[in-house]
């Protein structure tokens, strides 16, 4: 399991929103309202992204943010490093003995080290453009494409199964 922190999650949502509106200046409030995110945390995240020139801000009544860099040139690893200070793939659920763990570089176990290497490689290989740019990101995964159940099979009518990131 690869877990992202709330900060990274919200940053990707905000960048996706800005990427869909590249001609516009978008306020933190607008993104927060659109996705029901905590505005204060989102403002902090956008400020951090601005410090690293991933977004640029405009001051004033109609101020806000827009994408400030080529998102092809920024990896998911870089985004996590900017927001978290360090990159530890996986989840750390603390005291839950059955919970998933952070996959740390320093693990003495060879399989965990190998997994760490693979996950870090993945985080380096994935660019932000791959995740947030419309027309670049995967909207419907291949495994989600299958035959809809007929009315007689489901009792609820033919449902559409594949779903995706917001347009």
């Amino acid at each position, binding site marked *: 399991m690869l877990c992202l922190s709330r900060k990274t999650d919200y940053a990707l949502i905000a960048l996706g929103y800005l990427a869909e509106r590249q001609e516009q200046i978008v306020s933190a409030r*607008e993104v927060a309202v659109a996705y029901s995110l905590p505005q204060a945390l989102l403002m902090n995240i956008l400020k951090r992204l601005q410090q690293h020139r991933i977004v640029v801000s405009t001051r004033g009544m109609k101020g806000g943010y827009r994408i400030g860099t080529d998102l092809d040139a920024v990896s998911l690893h870089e985004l996590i490093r900017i927001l978290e200070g360090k990159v530890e793939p996986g989840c750390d659920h603390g005291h839950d003995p059955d919970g998933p763990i952070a996959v740390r570089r320093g693990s003495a176990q060879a399989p965990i080290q190998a997994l760490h290497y693979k996950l870090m490689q993945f985080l380096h290989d994935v660019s932000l453009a791959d995740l947030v740019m419309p027309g*670049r990101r995967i909207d419907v995964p*291949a495994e989600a*494409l299958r035959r*809809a159940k*007929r009315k007689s099979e489901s009792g609820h009518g033919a449902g*559409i199964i*594949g779903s995706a990131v917001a347009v």
Partner: protein
Amino acid sequence: MAIILSETAAREIKTIIKQQELPETATKLRVGVKGGGCSGFSYMLDLTEEAKGDMDEEIESQGIKILCDMKSYLYLNGTEIDFKDEVMGRGFVFKNPNATSTCGCGSSFTA
């Protein structure tokens, strides 16, 4: 304008139809959007053997019949559906020219 499939997307859909042992000539691709409001729409893809309904548009692209309800068609007309197989995973990518012309609050497309 219409909804078009790239060659790679069509090839992948035909492969999935075969893998799932669905009737090749009768199986259609249903395309749609769901959701709305400021957080936008989600794209939907589905395989179906149902006939074209009164509220459906039927299009053919790369030898695959596509069904799209008229409401979704307003947002999807002109869209190209491509297929990617890369480090991020395997899946379908919608290149939708309507998605760039949102209203000020982002709550709707100009279709």
